[in-house]
């Protein structure tokens, strides 16, 4: 399998616990727990209606109202709905990625299971800093479209490629994300992503400050014609992570799509296979303080 196929096909096992407040009194607590597998390259809120539909018969109130007043949490930290599942997972479970080799050794001898436990909370008011979802699912689709427009502008210097997509193609594009159809996705994204991009849509997520997303200006080549590496982009936004001689400090690791990547990898080479479904290259910066 190619890297692209592996990136697209990555899934995570999730156990979602739904707030007990949402159930009719007397419904056993285990009913509110859902086990499912979700693609790393997707939005979790996008499939939330499909998930909650399964539980609707046990729930008080209607689904539309519930969806407007709920938010997801992992270990009491709110998960922003507008980030890809994979990025959210890497941000909270980076330790599992750093210790993957030991885990795999251990898993071959004993029965191990990897589950991401998250909680769906419900309340009349959302916690501070949570962007409300009021127009499900259109809000998610238009947000994602805007992301691609942004990415398209960064790549080409214009959003024309994105704006001139036919109605059919843009529908096909969103459906490919919803249904996990990689052929359609590659077909439409090939119309947007140029073979020789000028800049790379890159986002850096710092585990020590996850609410702040860094979006450095990442040109493929610098003025002297040298290919830009990931390290160069990190250096411009997070210079405190650099050790002497311009190298990344030993306590810092860069994670993309759930794997550790080299800091001196060229952005131009890294972007096409490792890009996320929203057109951006998401890199999680892990610094052990």
């Amino acid at each position, binding site marked *: *399998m*190619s*890297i692209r196929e*592996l*990136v697209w*096909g*990555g*899934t*995570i*096992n*999730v156990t979602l616990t739904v707030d007990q407040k949402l159930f009719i009194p007397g419904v056993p607590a285990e*009913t509110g727990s*859902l*086990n*499912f*597998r*979700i*693609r790393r390259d*997707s939005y979790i809120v996008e*499939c939330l209606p*499909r*998930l909650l539909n*399964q*539980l609707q*018969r046990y729930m*008080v109130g209607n689904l539309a109202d519930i969806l407007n007043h709920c938010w997801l949490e992992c270990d009491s930290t709110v998960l922003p709905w507008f980030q890809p599942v994979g990025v959210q997972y890497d941000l909270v479970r980076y330790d*599992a*990625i750093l210790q*993957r*080799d030991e*885990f*795999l050794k251990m*898993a071959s001898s004993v029965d*191990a*299971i*990897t589950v991401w436990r998250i909680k769906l909370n419900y309340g009349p008011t959302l916690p501070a800093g949570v962007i409300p979802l009021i127009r499900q699912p259109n809000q998610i689709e238009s947000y994602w479209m805007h992301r691609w427009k942004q990415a398209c502008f960064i790549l080409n210097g214009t959003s024309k490629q994105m704006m001139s997509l036919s109605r059919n193609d843009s529908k096909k594009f969103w459906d490919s994300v*919803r*249904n*996990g159809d990689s052929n359609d996705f590659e077909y439409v994204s090939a119309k947007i992503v140029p073979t020789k991009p000028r800049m790379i849509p890159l986002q850096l997520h710092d585990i020590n400050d996850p609410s702040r997303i860094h979006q450095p200006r990442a040109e493929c080549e610098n003025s002297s014609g040298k290919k830009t590496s990931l390290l160069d982009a990190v250096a411009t936004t997070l210079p405190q992570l650099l050790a002497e001689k311009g190298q990344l400090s030993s306590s810092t690791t860069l994670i993309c*799509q*759930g*794997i*550790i*990547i080299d800091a001196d990898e060229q952005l131009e*080479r890294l972007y096409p*296979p*490792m890009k996320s479904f929203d057109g951006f290259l998401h890199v999680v910066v892990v610094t052990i303080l």
Partner: protein
Amino acid sequence: MERYERALVDRDRAEQLHSELFPAVADGGLSLGPEIGSSRDEETTSLLPQMRQLLAQRDTTISQLKEERATHMSQQVHLNDVILGLTLERNVMEDKLKVLQREYKELVTRWLAKAQQEADSMNRDVEQHR
């Protein structure tokens, strides 16, 4: 790049352990509890909106009754206060009545005594004229 391919395979090995226990959302193969679609289930599901409406109605009735009860309680407290006040007033009046009755009796005896005195003096005058 080959290194990344191996790393991604390892990632999937680690993250997708026993993923067969977790149905995929995108497949639509997610189903929990009893199968949806059996006739009995459809019957129950069709009843659901009705039941929900009923539940909502009942909830409003309960809140209404609760409000009513609260009003009744406050009214009762008020009435108790009025009763207490009236009892006090009655006690005061009773005391007053007793005092007045005693005074009246005294007056009557005094008046009788006076009348007797007058009668006696009149009798005495009559006797002297004879």
